[in-house]
C-alpha cells in the first residue's frame, strides 16, 4: 500500500478523561489551598499573582492556576501569556495514564515525559501540591501507584476529603 497525506485520528476518550481529570485536580488544588496546611506552606513561597500551568502537548488540555489573595485559583491564560512555571506533558497518553493513576508524577519525570520551564524549586513545590491533593482525591489502593508514600488518613483528613469531594468540586473552596 502506498498512501500519501495520511492524517492521524483523535483520541477522544483520552482527551475527555484528561480534561475532566484536570478540572477535578484544579478544583481539588483550589479547595486544598483554603485549608490544607502543607499546601498553604508551599504557596507561601510564591508571590501574589504567581501562576503555573500544566499543559498537554501539542494542544492541550491545560490546567492553569494563579495565586490570588493567598489561595490558588484556576484561570485561563490569555493568548501569548506565559505562566511563571510551565509543566508540559509530552503527549496525551502520558497525561491519561497520570490522571487515571497508572503513573505518578515522579514516574512521568523519571521517564522524561515532562518538560519544565521555570524554577526547579517551584516545580518541586507544584509536585508536592499535586501529591497532597491526589492523596485526597484517590483511595489508598490507587494512591499506592502514584505516590511514593501514602499519607495516613486520620479523621480530620477524612473530613477534608469529603469537603473536597463536595464543596471543593462544586465551588473550589
Amino acid at each position, binding site marked *: 500500500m502506498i498512501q500519501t497525506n495520511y492524517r492521524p485520528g483523535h483520541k477522544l476518550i483520552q482527551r475527555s478523561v484528561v480534561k475532566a481529570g484536570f478540572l477535578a485536580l484544579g478544583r481539588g488544588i483550589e479547595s486544598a489551598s483554603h485549608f490544607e496546611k502543607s499546601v498553604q506552606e508551599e504557596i507561601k513561597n510564591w508571590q501574589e499573582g504567581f501562576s503555573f500551568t500544566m499543559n498537554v502537548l501539542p494542544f492541550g488540555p491545560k490546567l492553569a492556576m494563579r495565586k490570588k489573595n493567598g489561595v490558588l485559583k484556576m484561570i485561563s491564560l490569555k493568548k501569548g501569556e506565559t505562566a511563571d512555571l510551565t509543566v508540559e506533558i509530552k503527549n496525551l497518553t502520558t497525561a491519561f495514564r497520570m490522571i487515571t493513576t497508572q503513573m505518578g508524577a515522579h*514516574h512521568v519525570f*523519571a*521517564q522524561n515525559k515532562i*518538560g519544565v520551564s521555570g524554577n526547579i524549586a517551584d516545580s*518541586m513545590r507544584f509536585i508536592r501540591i499535586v501529591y497532597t491533593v491526589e492523596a485526597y482525591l484517590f483511595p489508598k489502593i490507587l494512591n499506592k501507584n502514584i505516590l511514593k508514600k501514602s499519607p495516613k488518613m486520620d479523621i480530620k483528613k477524612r473530613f477534608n476529603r469529603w469537603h473536597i469531594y463536595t464543596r471543593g468540586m462544586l465551588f473550589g473552596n
Partner: protein
Amino acid sequence: MLPKYYEFQNPVKINAGQDALETIPYELKQMNASRPIIITDKGITNAGLLKTVLNAFDDSELTIGIIFDETPPDSSLSTVNRIAELYRKNKCDSIIALGGGSPMDTAKGVNILISENTDDIRKFMGADRLKSKMQPFIAIPTTSGTGSEVTLVAVIYDEANQVKMPFTSARLLPDVAILDPRMTIGLPPRITAATGMDALTHAIEAYTCLQKNPMSDAYATAAIKLVGENLLKVVKDGSNKEARFAMANASTMAGIAFSNSMVGAVHAIGHACGAVAHIHHGNAMAILLPYVMEFNMDMLGNLYGELLLFLTDADTYTTIEADKRAGKFIETIKEMNKKLNELCKMPIKLYDAGLKKEQFEQVATTALNDGAMLPNPKELSKKDVLEILERAF
C-alpha cells in the same frame, strides 16, 4: 527488572588515552570550525594544563579566537554574558571547555546564548527549552568526578537574584569529550579523592534511582568497578598514569549513566550543603553517600547488594550471604572514606567539612526543593533529611 519505558542518549564522541588532545584540531575541522574559544580558569592556567592544550594545536591550521581563563569557581550569569560578548566580537565559531564543573557549565551557558542568539539565558531555564542547532563544542575534563563532559545539564548562578538556574537539554551535550591522562596527573590527592567519590555517587545513584535502565546500568556498574580498583591507588600515587586514566574513564561512564538516569537524595542534600555552607561537592557526596544509602536501605537493599560485586571482587561477593551484601556494600564505602581520610584528610563528617548545626534547617528546606529529590525512590520528609544530617554530622 526492566523499566516499563526509558530514554537513553549519549551522542558524545569520546577520544580517550595517549595524545587525545592532539585530535582536537581534526575534530574541529570535521565540524567545519576553525576559530575556537577556550574557556577555562586560572587554576588550570597556573597548573600548566592550558599550555599543554595549546601545544596540541601546534602545526594546525586553526586560530584560537580567544583564551578566557577568568571563570569563577561557580559559573555565573555575568561571566557567561561576558564570554558570549567576547565570542561574538572575536568571531569565534566553536567552544572548547577546559576544566572541572565550572568551566564546563559556563561553556554550556555560552553555547546557549550564542546558539539561541539571545542576550537573556534565563528564558531557557528548565528542561528541553533549547531548539536551535548548537555551536561545535569540545569538552576537556581536568578532574575525574563531575562527568560534565557527557551530561546534558548546566547550572548557572544568577548573582542578581541569588538563584542557581538549571538548564537541561540533550543539545547541551558536547560533540566530543577528550580524556587525556595528562589533564588529571597533577590533581592534588584531596581533590582526587573527593571527585572520585563524586563519580562513585553518580554511578550508585544512577543504578538505584527511578530512572535506572539497562543501558545506564551497564555504564554505572563499569564505573563502580573502575573506582573500586583505582581510587585508593591514585590517591596514594598521583603519578600512576594508568590509574588516573581509569578514573577519568570511570568519571565519564558514571556521567553517561547519571545523565540518563538522574541522581537522587545524596545529590539533593549535597547540593543544599554546597548552597548553604559552601561545602565542596565531592566532599559532600563522600560524606552523605553511606548515610543516605542506610536511609534507602529498606527499599533499595537488593540493588546495593548487587553492586557489591563491582566495588569489591567476586570472591568477597560470593562469600557473603545474599541478605548481608547490601550492608557490606555500605560498610565498604565507609571503609573507603576512612582510608581516604587517612591518606589525604578528606573530611568524612559534615562538621569537619564546615557545616554548622544551625544550618541544618536551611539545608533540609533547600534539599527538598532540589530536583534530584524526585528520582529518589524513597520519599524524604524534612524530618528524614534532618536525621540524615544529624547522623552525618
